[in-house]
Each structure stands twice: as structure tokens, then as C-alpha cells.
């Protein structure tokens, strides 16, 4: 595959300097990369602890990440109290209703089934200030809108922030259908089974961290947490985002920043040389052996934001497009020829009271679930 695009580099100018980006296969390796990945977090708000243990796989592999089963996972505080986590599903270890003391420091201990021991550094608990506001603004560089977060900490103790989000949007299938052809019969679809209107929820994928260390005040002003292109399906009708904010320690911030630099912000002319990112978990017997992942303790603050497409200015709106959704017609006597991926849209009436034919279209044009959403309205939807 070759996705060469004409890309005006700096001066590029009249000569149309074309920079070209092609896909590149992963390198072939013959070394063992089966490193343990520890993704652990403790929520001090509700006293829950979640640890996911898995293994790395070669870059070229298409398999899923193998979980680490039957490990012994413990949470320890600096007074020697120990809380054991229980494996809930394969590789996932959890405990809830822990009574945690925000003035204490916590660390994670893991012993795998082959008796390798891992221990994290002690982590201090930082209080997270609430999100002040979430808003949107037209993007300055590419057509579309940025979703922006604002927060502050009057005590100036937070300084390092991390966000994750879950965005949900409402959308509709190109054609509304209220009939279905089933068992040789055309029947109407009950309201609760409608497949025209959907909601889709997506998690954040990128590392979103910010810092106010350079500022006099501990303020985060209009931090862009996501970008919605002008022609995105997300803002055809209504969009909502639930943002979670978490205070980070300086060490955690550095870890995520390095991970961001070496796995996301690449492809420029002046990229730093990528390298290994070391977290706060170590192999006790072999201190040089790589251990991937991070252990973090803290409480998140949440805020939800809604955006109606009708609130956007005309030039930023995206109207429903029917793309390649062609309607076709099928005579009643030929209904049995419809395949499983064809759905009826409308009946066509001739002289008689019963339709002589139906219009139909492909599933993708009639069933909104084909695009990843669900027809159940989320409870928070306004």
C-alpha cells in the first residue's frame, strides 16, 4: 500500500516538494520479547485496585496479548499493611472497598506463576482538583473543532495532569426502515427494535497529559483533548464527552511524556531518537530486565459535556451524507431473492391496497448498528 500524498513541506512552493509517507513492515526479530506488562492503578476515591498482567508480543505478531495467569498480586503501604488482589478474569486482578489513607504511600508487588518477583516504587497520593469547564473552539490549523478542558489548583500542588475520556455521539442510518422481511413475510419493526438511531461510545486512545510547571499559577487553560474534523460523523446530530482528570506525580508525568514521545509523536524531521521508556516497576532479582507498564495511585475527577450540532456555526457543521447508499426496488414476488444484507426501506403502492414492490438497500445504509453503535439510548443522554 502506498499512500503518497502531495504534502507541501516548508518552502515546497512552486516546485511542489513532495514528501511521501508509505507504510512500512515491522522488523523481523529473533529475540525473546515476552516481557511482563503491569498496568496497575488504585482509585483512592472508591478504594478499588485494578491490575492487569499481560505479556508483550513481537511487533509483527497478529496474536492477542497473552495474559499472565495465577499470579500473586499485592498492594502494600509504607506501614507494612498488605492488601491481596484477586484474579477476576484472565490476567485481571482486582480488589474493592479498600480503606486507603491518602497520607500513606503505596506500592505494588507481583509474583508470577514462574516465581519471578516484581515490585514497584512507592507512590504518593495526589489530590485531583475538579475540572472547571469543558468547551469547544474552531481549530486553528485544520478545519474542525477542538474540545478543550480547563482546570486549576489554587494550592498549586497539582501541576501535572492526565486526562482520559469517553466520547459518545448520536447518529442515524441513511435510510429509515420500519419493515422487515422475515420468514417470507413483511412485518413492521416494533419501536424498541428500531435500527435507525444509534449511539456510539469510544474511549480515548492517546496519552493526554498537561503541565502548568512553567506558569505562575497552577492553571490549565483550554487544553485540547480531542479534535473532531469538520466532516466527522460525531457531530452530525449530538456529541457528548466524559472527561476524567487525574493529578500525576512528576515521575508519572515524565513516564507518560516519554511514552508519548516514543510511540505517538513521531514522523517529523526533527524527532528525538526513540528509546526505551522505563516505568516504576522493577524485577527484584534482575534489576536490568525490562518491565513494562506503570503503577499509579490517585482519584479521578469527571465532567461531562454535550455539544449539539445545531450549536455549531454553519461553516463547521457536517450534514448527513448518503455516500454510496443506492436504493433498489424488488417486486413482492421476488422478495425471497433478498439476501440477509438487504433491508427493506419503503413499500411501493400501485393501484391496489397492498404494495407491489419494496425499495431496499444494503444493511450498512439501513442499520445504524453496522457502524459500531448501539440502539439503546445511554442513560446520561439528555
Amino acid at each position: 500500500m502506498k499512500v503518497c500524498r502531495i504534502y507541501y513541506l516548508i518552502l515546497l512552493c512552486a516546485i511542489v516538494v513532495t514528501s511521501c509517507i508509505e507504510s512500512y513492515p515491522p522488523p523481523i526479530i529473533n529475540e525473546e520479547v515476552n516481557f511482563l506488562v503491569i498496568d496497575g492503578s488504585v482509585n483512592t476515591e472508591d478504594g478499588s485496585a485494578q491490575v492487569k498482567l499481560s505479556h508483550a508480543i513481537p511487533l509483527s505478531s497478529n496474536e492477542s496479548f497473552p495474559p499472565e495467569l495465577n499470579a500473586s498480586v499485592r498492594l502494600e503501604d509504607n506501614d507494612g499493611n498488605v492488601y491481596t488482589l484477586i484474579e477476576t478474569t484472565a490476567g485481571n486482578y482486582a480488589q474493592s472497598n479498600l480503606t486507603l489513607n491518602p497520607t500513606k504511600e503505596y506500592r505494588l508487588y507481583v509474583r508470577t506463576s514462574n516465581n519471578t518477583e516484581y515490585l514497584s516504587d512507592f507512590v504518593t497520593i495526589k489530590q485531583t482538583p475538579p475540572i472547571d469547564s469543558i468547551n469547544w473552539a474552531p481549530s486553528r490549523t485544520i478545519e474542525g473543532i477542538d474540545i478543550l478542558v480547563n482546570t486549576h489548583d489554587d494550592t498549586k500542588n497539582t501541576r501535572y495532569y492526565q486526562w482520559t475520556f469517553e466520547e459518545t455521539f448520536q447518529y442515524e442510518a441513511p435510510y429509515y426502515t420500519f419493515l422487515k422481511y422475515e420468514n417470507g413475510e413483511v412485518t413492521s419493526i416494533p419501536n424498541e427494535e428500531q435500527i435507525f438511531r444509534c449511539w456510539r461510545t469510544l474511549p480515548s486512545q492517546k496519552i493526554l497529559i498537561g503541565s502548568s510547571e512553567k506558569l505562575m499559577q497552577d492553571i490549565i487553560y483550554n487544553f485540547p483533548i480531542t479534535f473532531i474534523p469538520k466532516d466527522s460523523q460525531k457531530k452530525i446530530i449530538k456529541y457528548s464527552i466524559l472527561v476524567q482528570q487525574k493529578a500525576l506525580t512528576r515521575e508519572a508525568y515524565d513516564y507518560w511524556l516519554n511514552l508519548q514521545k516514543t510511540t505517538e509523536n513521531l514522523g517529523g524531521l526533527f524527532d528525538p531518537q526513540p528509546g526505551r521508556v522505563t516505568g516504576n516497576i522493577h524485577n527484584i532479582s534482575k534489576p536490568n530486565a525490562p518491565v513494562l507498564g506503570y503503577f499509579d495511585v490517585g482519584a479521578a475527577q469527571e465532567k461531562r459535556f454535550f455539544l449539539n450540532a445545531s450549536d455549531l456555526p454553519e461553516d463547521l457543521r457536517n450534514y448527513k451524507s448518503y455516500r454510496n447508499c443506492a436504493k433498489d426496488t424488488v417486486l413482492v414476488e421476488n422478495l425471497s431473492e433478498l439476501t440477509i444484507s438487504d433491508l427493506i426501506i419503503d413499500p411501493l403502492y400501485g393501484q391496489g391496497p397492498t404494495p407491489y414492490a419494496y425499495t431496499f438497500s444494503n444493511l450498512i445504509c439501513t442499520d445504524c448498528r453496522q457502524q459500531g453503535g448501539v440502539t439503546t439510548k445511554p442513560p446520561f443522554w439528555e
Partner: protein
Amino acid sequence: MEINQGMKKKITLLFVSILFVLQVEAQTKQVVSGDFTSHTYAQFVSKVEAQTNYHFYYNPIWTDSLVVNAHFSNTNIAKVLDEVFIGTSLHYSINGNSIYITFERPILADLPIGFFDANNIATANGDSFDYSEFEHKEKLKKQAEEKLYNIGPRTNSLQGYATLAGIVRDIKSGEPIIGASVFVENPTIGAATDQFGYFSLTLPRGRHEINIKSIGMKSTQRHVMLYGNGKLDIEIEEDITPLKEVLVESDRDARVTGMQIGMEKLDIRTMKQIPLALGETDIMKVVLTLPGVQSVGEGTVGLNVRGGATNQNLILYNDATVYNPSHLFGFFSTFNPDVLKNVELYKSGIAAEYGGRLSSVLDVHSREGNLKKIQGSGGISPITGRFSLEGPIIKDRTSFLIGARSTYSDWILKQLNSPELENSTASFYDLNASISHKIDDNNNLYISGYTSKDKFKLNSDTIYHYSDQNASLKWKHAFNNKLYGVLTGTISRYRYSVESDSNPVDAASLDFSIRQWNAKADFNYFPNSKHTITTGASLVRYDISPSNYQPFGESSGVVADRIQNEQALESAIYVGENFEVTPNLSLYFGLRYSFYQSLGSRDVYTYAEGVPRQKETIQDTIQYGEGKTISNYQGAEPRFSVRYSLSQNSSVKFSYNLMRQYIQMLSNTTAIAPTDIWKLSDTYVRPQIGNQYSIGYYKNMRGNMIETSVEAYYKTMQHAVDYKDGAILLKNRHLETEILDSKGKAYGIELLVKKSTGKVNGWVSYTYSRSFLKTKGQSPTETINDGVYYPSSYDKPHAFNFIGNYKFSRRFNFSLNVVYSTGRPITLPIAKYELGGTERIYYSDRNQFRIPDYFRTDISINIEGNHKIKKLAHSSWTVAVYNLTGRANAYSVYFTSENGIIKGYKLSIFAQAIPTITYNFKF
């Protein structure tokens, strides 16, 4: 009485009148008495004029260095003048009460034999009588070549040696010619002119034929009768043969017979033939075609010479250090081709006068400006426009040269009307100006200045500005034929500023600046034909402002943060001696001793012993007051080379040199980035030390038409700079926690075949080279790749270059350029894992993989305008295609997490063939 500008005309008229008043001569002879010890010529003249009725007519330029030392009592004027002018090139003619002083050519008071005899045409041998301006140029040249120049006071004894010195100049512009060979064949004694065009030859007294050969100039010779020490300035003519020879004989000989090893010299005319990407001759890109020189990718001017880092090259522009030789982060070099004269790259065998960088010296010289007439040139390419003007301020004495270059890419960006470009700007300009002034025969003054500014913004809210400025002042004084000295003062300044205002609350600007003052004195001494001695001293003061972070705009809440300045003093003394033991064996010994002091005022952190240096292990802060020495380093830097001629056209050479470097550029990006900073050596960052051994075999074939050479080298480096993974270099108060001390080694072999003349000329080179680093600290965080040698980012084992020119006719020239090299090493991910629902990657050991190999072909056609001599302007067109095959050469390969999935990409910069057309003019 003096004759100045109008003199030539007057003299011309005089010739006519002289012919008819010959008999007047000697009618009114008068005598001169008195003591004329240590008189200037002007004093002498006024004294004689006071005593007698004579009036002198002369040009003061010829006589200002003349000192009269004589005593006369009632001496005949002719005898007086004979004695005064002995050993000079001055001649006199007495006509009544007027005495005409001429330079080099006497006015003959007698008509040549047979002047009135139509059957017996006078033949010009030795002294001819027609020296007027009407002389045809060719005739002039022929005469100069045929004439016998008498050097020194005439004597009968021709025992021992005498020194002949002078300056070789371009007859058209009066500019000195650098690197011209001035030699006699029997015995074989020769010298190359230095950067002032100066040569000094110590020869046995007697008659010699002096040969002069130089790049792009017609070869010529002078016959001299050497009685004693004397001066002979030589003007030579540009070789306008359409072949535009890449290198002429002088250099071809030099490769075999010269002392230099691992040195490449390029003339601007050679460089102008090589097809280039953006429509403009770019010396940095041409240098990249030479064996042993690499870069990490297109669009970067960082040179990696023989496995050295990009900061290990000393780039000099008219003796001033250049810190950033690029515009628009590397797409152009800062050197305006119109004002350049030549470029010398020293890869090994670096002489003792150079110091301060490990890998190479790139010595760039601008021209001095035409001494005879006003001249201009310029060019228009799709991206830049340039113009230069030069000419005499005082004819034959003072000249100026100014050059300007700018881009109109900004204007083009606006015309393109693309949303992506609306937010982009890119502009730069540079200005060069220089003046050279001949105070008198023994004193010359050179002033040169350079300034440039860049500004760009790449579809973002971040604006980059940078500017590079330097100036130099040079005074050259010749004490005598055997000794001259040069006093040089230079200032260099480089700074950049990054402004970001995307978010009004944290809008800020970040500035970096470095200033350098340099004073040095260099002496060249030519005691006899077997020895040349150079000696001198230099003093460099550095002042770096590593980071000045300031709020930008009214609403910015950023706290100003300025990192303390770094200061240092680097001083050095050196002596070098070139000794020609036998005609077959030459030796060079050089010793440089450098002394470095890192100076306050500055606060220095101390770290806990025995644990890795980290922010957390800072124990104390020591404050050093203004001018206090924080740390110092010193050491000898021996240099040695030897040349042994195996035959007339083959030789072997060996060299060793040790270099010390006290300033380093910090960059953890692969290519030189716009935000790289320079750092002085201090308590924790030790000076880099480099050793290089190199050996070469040189052979010329087919009458020096084909030159071949094989050079091999082995290098070691100590205290090279390496970085921890994810090092943060900007705005860092404790850089020593991010920098690692590493060792380097590099070796390679370079093969070159070059054909300099003929309809087809060019060169082919192949280099096999390796370059490694080893970083083994006390703890794992200070160790890279387990402390074993790993390939550096510029380790490209195989490199092949072909540069060829074919001259179809006087007006059409075709050039082809083929480049191949192994892809550079890169760190790639080897594993992926899941963290927080997103795929992340785990990297291999540093530089364990390579990007795909690099291959590129360029062509260009030069079309000269017609060759009519009387034209308003001479013009030429260059049509070039860069990357003819359109191969998408990888600049980098990277893997990134997109929507939670890892994807791999290859980025190419010039992924297509790029045609350009350039118009050049000259008037």
C-alpha cells in the same frame, strides 16, 4: 610631484613626445649630495627636487614601501637613481628636468635598432619598447612570459640562495589566487600560494623558469634572473576555455606531490556544475559528494566527516566560526555562491594552526572583489533570488564585494492558497560584505561581515527565528620576503528564538544565543627552500545563553525562566614545521597546545558520589563569582604527516593528529534540529579528544590526466557526547544528568578516481567506513546497549558517488550525479504491548536496524548565453532534475500508535523527481 590616476594617459602621450626629443636628454645634468639614510622615497624625492631642477613623476603605490639608504656627494643623478632603484622593479628615464619613474618596464631613451629601417623590423626580445596601453593583451602576456625579470641587485657572484616572494593575482579582477602552484622544475622547488595569494620561494641564485599553475587559470611562466632577495608579483589569466576544467594541473600535481592527506579543495566553478535540488549551488551539498562525508538525510546540512558527529566540524567563513551553516533548517546552506571563492575540507592531516573540533575543518573563503572594474552577478531560481556587486574603491588597491540573497517562498506560499499553507511561513535572507585594502606593498587589510535571518512557521502556531552573524578583520604584514604575519580578530554570534502563542495563557518565547570572540596571530616563515615554519597563538572567548524563557504577550501566565550563562576562555599556541628532507621525502611536525577555562559567574551542582547523576542526587550548589575558574582542561595536540614519493607520479603519505574540542552541540534528534543548543565543557562535560591515523596512496596516470587515490583512516574519540533515552536538553538546569560520556571509534577506506580535464570529466568515489559509539556508565541508566560498541546514527558502511560532466559545445554542458549509500542505523520497535487499552511499543537496543539504502540520480544542463564580448550582461540557464528516478528514499522509518493500533511508516522528503530552472546573470 606625483602622478596618479591620469598618469597612464600622460605617459602614453609622453612616449610620442619622447621619440622626438631624444636629443634633449643629458643636456642639463645636475648632481646630488647628502645623506639619505632611512629615507622614504617621498623624502628622498623632495630632497633631490630641492637640490636640483629635476621633477619626479611617479605613482606612489610603486614606491611607498621603498626605503632609501644611501650617501651621495656630488653624484650624477643617473648614478643616484641606479643605486636607489637597485633590487627593485623600478626604472627611470630622464627627459630634460623631468624624471619618469616606471614600474617593471623602463622607458627606453633610445630608439630600438632599426626603428627607421623598414627592412629590419624590431623583434621583441628581453626589453621591448612598446609598453603602452595599446598593447594587445596577448602580447602583454607573451611579453611577461618572455621577459627576463632581474631580481635583486645585479652581482657577478651567483653563489648561495635568495628568496623570491610575491603575490599571484587574477589579471582581470586583481584578486589574489589561492592555492596556485609556483614552482621551478630544476631543482624541483615549489610552493602553493596561501590565502592571500602569497608565495615565497628560496632558490639558488641564477636564472630560473618559474611555472605558475592554478585551478581554472591559464598556466604561465616567468623567467627570472635571481641575483638576490626580491619581489615578483604575477598576474595570471582566467582560463575561459569552455571545458571548465574541474581541477587543473596544479591540483593534480598537488595530490601526489603535496603534503596534504585527507584534504579536498573545491573551487566555486566546480561546485556550480553539480546538479542540485533547489536551483542553487550549495557548497554544503557539494561537500557531501566527497568521499568520507555523510549526512543523516536529505534536507539537513549536518556533515558527518569520517564517522564524526555533526558538531565536530569547524566551519570557518573568512576565519570566523559559523555555528549554523543552514537556512530553513537545512534545505539551503548559508553561503551565497556568488561571493564564494573556494572551500577547503580537511579530513585528516590537520595543520597545527587549526584546532577546536575533532573531525574536520571546512574553510570557506569569499572572494575579495574585483580590483579593476565594477562587476555584478546574480541569479533567480524558483525559491531564491541573489545578487552581488563588486569593484574597486581605489583602483588596484581597495576593493569591495557585497552579496545579498533572499527567498520569496513566503510570497509563493500565499499564492498557493492551500489551507495547510495558510498557517505557514518560510523566509530567510543573508548579506555578505567585504573590503580588502592594500595599504602598501607589505601591509594588507581585510574586513568581512556576514549576517543572516531566518523565520519559519510550519502549519502551527510556533514561529522559529534564527540569525547568524559574523565579522572578521585581518591585517597582514610582510616583514620581509621570508616572514609575514597575520593578525586576525573575529566575532561570531548565533541565536535562535522560538515563539509559541497557540494558547494565550502559556504563550512563551525561548531564546538561545552564543557569542564568540576570537583573536589570533599567525606567522609564516620561509627560512629556505627546505623549511616552512608556521607559528601563532589564539584566544577565544565564548559566551552562551543556553535558554531564556519569557512570557509572550499580555495574557501569558508563564514565569520567566532564564538559565545562567556559560562562559569560557580557550587559548592555544602552536608551531608547525614543513621540512623537505629530500625531493622525495617531506615531513610535517606540528604541535598545538590548548588551554581551556570554564569561567564564572555560575552555580554548579554537586552530586552524591557513587550513584547515578540525577536531579534527585544533587547535594550542593557551588557558586563561582564573575571570572572565577570553574574547571580547566589543557593538553598538547601533536600533528604529524609524512610524504614519500615513490616515483614522479605516485606517492604514499601518512598522518597522525590529535584534536581537542571544548564546545559541543547537544542534539538528541537524528538530524540537526532548529532547537539544538551548544554547551561548553565544564566540570561534568569533559572536552572531547580525537586521535586519527591515516595513510594514503596516490597515483596519477596518463600525464596527470587521471588521478587516483586510496586513503585509509582509523579514529578514536574520547568523551564524545551521548544521551539517555528520552533526554530533555532544553531548559534544563542540570544537563549533566542527561548527557552521557561515551567513546567512539571509526575507520574506513576511501577510493577516488578523478579525471579533471577533457570533454568528459568528473570523479567516482567509493568509501567503506564504520563508526561506533560505546557508552558504559556506572549504572544501567548511564549505559547504552549494555556498554558495548554500537553503530552511530551516521554509520553508513558503503557509499558511492559519481559526478560527471560532459561538454557538448562551448555553450552546453551536461552533468550527471549518482549517489548511493547504505541506509543509516535506526532504533526500531521490536515488541508491542497493551497499556490502558492502547497498543504501545518497546524499542530494540539503540541503532540495531537500518533504514533502506539511499540511491539518487540528478542531472543538469547548463546553457550559456552567446559569447559576444560586448553585451550588457552575460547570462546562463541551468535546468536540473533532482532525484531523476523519483525514488522515495527513506528519511526515517517510524512506528506510531494510531487509534490504539501500531502502524509503521517510511517518510521520504524528496519522493519525486524535482525539476528546477535557474537564470544566472553577470555584468
